[in-house]
């Protein structure tokens, strides 16, 4: 039993490291920084100026929201790409033909993206302090750290689903990037979700990150664990459901590809 667990753990970590390296190893530092920080920073500036134009004098709500959305770049796009690229680069048939257990292979895709997302937020917060005078004097740092970790985890759950979809469609990246854009409106990044029309508000509560961002905002204001616990439990549940759905979708696609003998031609 212990040997089996060790084997699974080793496979999980190795798979996590290789898939992360495979995504970024060919990249240059410029391209990496442009993707990770450039696009989100300028998008945040656009929203800040849009807010200023319509009469929102304090841009901090928008700034904080956009920083808390940063882990989704890894969790959603990064995880989705590491899975979807298997097909694009012709490695899917080797993956599906290997005898390795599917759990660590699939779930390992998220580990380093979760950590990377966490680090990105930790870099962005001091920058926000410098440029937007974000006050962290009251912040509950331990809770904030946990909330960001949870956001990174739950967003990777959505990445698993989109990654699996990428295996069966050529338009996986387009779907992922469109959904990533939709998060700016749906998960309470730039304004509270209760401003959304009824249907969209309901949808926002079915998505990962909505509750996590709410909890992290409260942690920044100094809230204690007890007051944000329902939000955290809800976020963890939504993240776990998305991860489970993504994993089962992957298994289903694998089974279908075996039955059809299609593998890379899925």
């Amino acid at each position, binding site marked *: 039993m212990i040997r089996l667990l060790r084997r699974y753990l080793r496979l999980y970590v190795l798979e996590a490291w290789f898939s992360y390296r495979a995504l970024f190893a060919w990249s240059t530092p*410029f*391209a990496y920084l*442009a*993707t990770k920080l*450039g*696009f989100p920073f*300028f*998008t945040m*500036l*656009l*929203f800040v*100026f*849009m*807010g*200023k*134009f*319509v*009469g*929102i004098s304090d841009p901090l709500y928008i700034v904080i929201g956009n920083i808390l959305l940063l882990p989704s770049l890894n969790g959603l796009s990064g995880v989705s790409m590491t899975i979807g690229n298997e097909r694009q680069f012709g490695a899917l048939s080797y993956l599906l033909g290997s005898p390795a257990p599917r759990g660590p292979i699939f779930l390992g895709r998220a580990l380093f993206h979760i950590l990377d997302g966490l680090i990105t937020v930790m870099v962005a917060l001091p920058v926000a302090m410098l440029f937007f005078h974000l006050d962290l004097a009251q912040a509950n740092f331990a809770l904030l750290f946990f909330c960001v970790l949870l956001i990174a985890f739950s967003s990777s759950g959505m990445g698993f689903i989109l990654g699996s979809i990428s295996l069966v469609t*050529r*338009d996986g990246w*387009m*779907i992922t990037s*469109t959904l990533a*854009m*939709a998060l*700016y*409106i749906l998960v309470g990044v*730039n*304004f*509270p979700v209760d*401003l*959304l029309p009824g249907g969209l508000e309901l949808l926002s509560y079915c998505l990962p990150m909505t509750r996590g961002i709410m909890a992290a905002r409260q942690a920044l204001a100094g809230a204690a664990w007890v007051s944000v616990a329902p939000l955290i439990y809800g976020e963890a549940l939504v993240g776990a459901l998305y991860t489970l759905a993504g994993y089962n979708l992957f298994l289903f696609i694998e089974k279908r590809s075996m039955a059809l003998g299609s593998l890379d031609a899925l």
Partner: protein
Amino acid sequence: MRKWSLRLVWRQMDVQIRIRTLNWYTLLIFILQPAIFSGVGILLSRAAGNPVPNLVYTVIGGGIMGMWSGLVFTSTFDITRDRRDGTLELIVGSPTSLGMVEAIRTFTNVVAGLFSLGAAFLVAMLVFHYSLVGIDYVGALVSLFLIMFAMWCIGVFLANFIAWSRLTGAVADLLEIPVAVLCGFMYPVSVLPGWMQAISAFIPIRWALQALDASLLGNSSPTLLLQNWTFAVLLSLLFWALSRWLEGKVHDRIRITGELNSI
């Protein structure tokens, strides 16, 4: 223009439109992405307590955003895709110059972007009851034409720049939003701090867009329009001259290395 030139332009546009519409998801760039930005603008306006959003900046500005996003991604990724698919060498080796191919492709991309602007206008009129009363139609049409001209010049410049520099799509990622921020696609440029306004003065789209917004809002004056149009035309021509220079550099590199794939 001679008959064969028109035929060349038409054939190139036909090919470009076929490539773009092979995948209907690419239309998401023109429709969904601007809709999301407009949606954020409308909801931010509501959060600020405004009963009605400013339709010219929030909704129609989203259409301009869609035009720009469509152009910047297609103009930069066309070259990258040609390089990846091995068609870049065929284009460089064909009797039609790379510059001409890029010019026609970019023109098609700019014209395709009108789809996004048209959709934004329809939404503004049908959903938000945007009134066309008080609009300076002539000013708006000339300004729109100059926006398209400015985008075409920048698109051709970017296409040649990507071919010459061998930079990848990361450049497109970096250019898309900053230009939208600096040119005031979704708000007037006066919202920006002084130093950002100074930088944006070098981008021709900003001047043409400023004239379009003034025309749509009905507060344009001949002096203001002429001033904005002049800046837009001069700066566009500067980008066009730069792209011609870069095109020469691209062909120089091919001649020096003797390899079509050196770009």
